[in-house]
């Protein structure tokens, strides 16, 4: 976990310096909106935030990391949440609960989160970086599933569930970004439930593939 400074050095040139990661995000997002993500440099963001370049890097390791906010901390939270769920809870139900929880935000955070996700999902230049963050997210799911079904986290079944869960979450996010009001956590919940129901609809018996979840 990277350290988050509680205070930043003295402002330069009379600007009021930002003093939190979230404020720095807002400043950066305004610049991205105005001049585009790719054309905005770390120096631009630092200048607009009234902080030095070095201070910027105490908040974020790179420009690409800005839209991801506190992602590492959030992943730790999701891991803890999953581990705390009762072992008798069905696997996909546990994942649904964890995903919904992971994507539940206080009303005052929603605006920032919307801007964040719009950037992440709609900026081509961010795609390569995003795959690394997605992989870290999937890893949490893979490890949970592997543990539950007694397989390595990188075996086919756990990895499949990791990719599927990510796909569901992204589908819900895209739906959410299309509308102004839709409640994100309700969409996540509905996405997982609807997919589960789609499988309940007359599935052919499994073939010779070993029953990984049996």
């Amino acid at each position, binding site marked *: 976990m990277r350290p988050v400074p509680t205070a930043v050095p003295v402002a330069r040139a009379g600007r009021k310096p930002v003093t939190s990661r979230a404020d720095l995000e807002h400043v950066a997002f305004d610049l991205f909106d105005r001049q585009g993500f790719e054309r905005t440099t770390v120096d631009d963001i630092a200048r607009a935030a009234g902080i030095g370049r070095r201070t910027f890097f105490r908040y974020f390791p790179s420009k690409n990391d800005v839209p991801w906010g506190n992602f590492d901390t959030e992943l730790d939270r999701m891991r803890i949440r999953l581990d705390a769920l009762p072992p008798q809870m069905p696997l996909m139900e546990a994942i649904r609960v964890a995903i919904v929880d992971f994507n539940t935000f206080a009303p005052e955070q929603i605006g920032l989160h919307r801007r964040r996700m719009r950037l992440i999902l709609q900026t081509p230049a961010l795609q390569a970086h995003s795959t690394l963050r997605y992989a870290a997210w999937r890893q949490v799911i893979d490890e949970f599933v592997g543990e539950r079904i007694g397989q390595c986290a990188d075996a086919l079944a756990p*990895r499949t569930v990791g990719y*599927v869960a990510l796909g569901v979450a992204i589908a819900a996010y895209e739906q959410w970004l299309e509308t102004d009001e839709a409640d994100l956590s309700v969409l996540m919940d509905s996405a997982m439930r609807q997919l589960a129901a789609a499988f309940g609809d007359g599935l052919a018996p499994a073939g010779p593939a070993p*029953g990984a979840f049996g």
Partner: protein
Amino acid sequence: MDDAGKTGAGAPDLPQPAGPGRLPSTTRHQLQDIAMDMFSAHGYDEVTIEALAAAAGISRRTFFRYFSSKADALMADFDTAVERLRSVLAGSDPDLPMMDAIRHAVVAVNDYRTEDLARLRQRMQLQHDNPALLANGILHYEEWQAVVAEFAAGRLSQAADDLLPQVIARSVFGAAYAGLMSWLADERGDLGPRLDGALRAMAEAFRA
């Protein structure tokens, strides 16, 4: 890579497409293979469209009749798979449950064999090494998912951009991608059974 003559050495001459209409897909695939080798040898950013066209013995204009961008030249096989997926899904038995129909179609069109592995691996490596190629690849993956979403929407009598068709498309793609990654990691057997295994694992997870 400005010296087109140098990179063109030894490359096969491709026939010029005759008139408007459908372009020969074999040529599209030959062009893809040339692009893949040149990107791998010299780096994607270093290869110009002029050099690519010259290596293939065609003009820049003709190149653009096959592909709309340099990055797209890498995706000919994938684009073909998308079109096959569309037609296999369209012809699927209406009595087959939706998720089974999708699984059958995904397995049927991804009939990669061990001998195709090198090319597929080469594309994945290029996408891994170059953010622009990765971003472009993701756009083509979106097409694949759109095909699945349209099929699911038809079955469900919903719009393709409604939540459930989108969730199905993204999750099926995710499962198929997990199957592909698993296959690339150990190269045992053909891809089809691995995809079938991944899509069954998804179904099983939801029923467990």
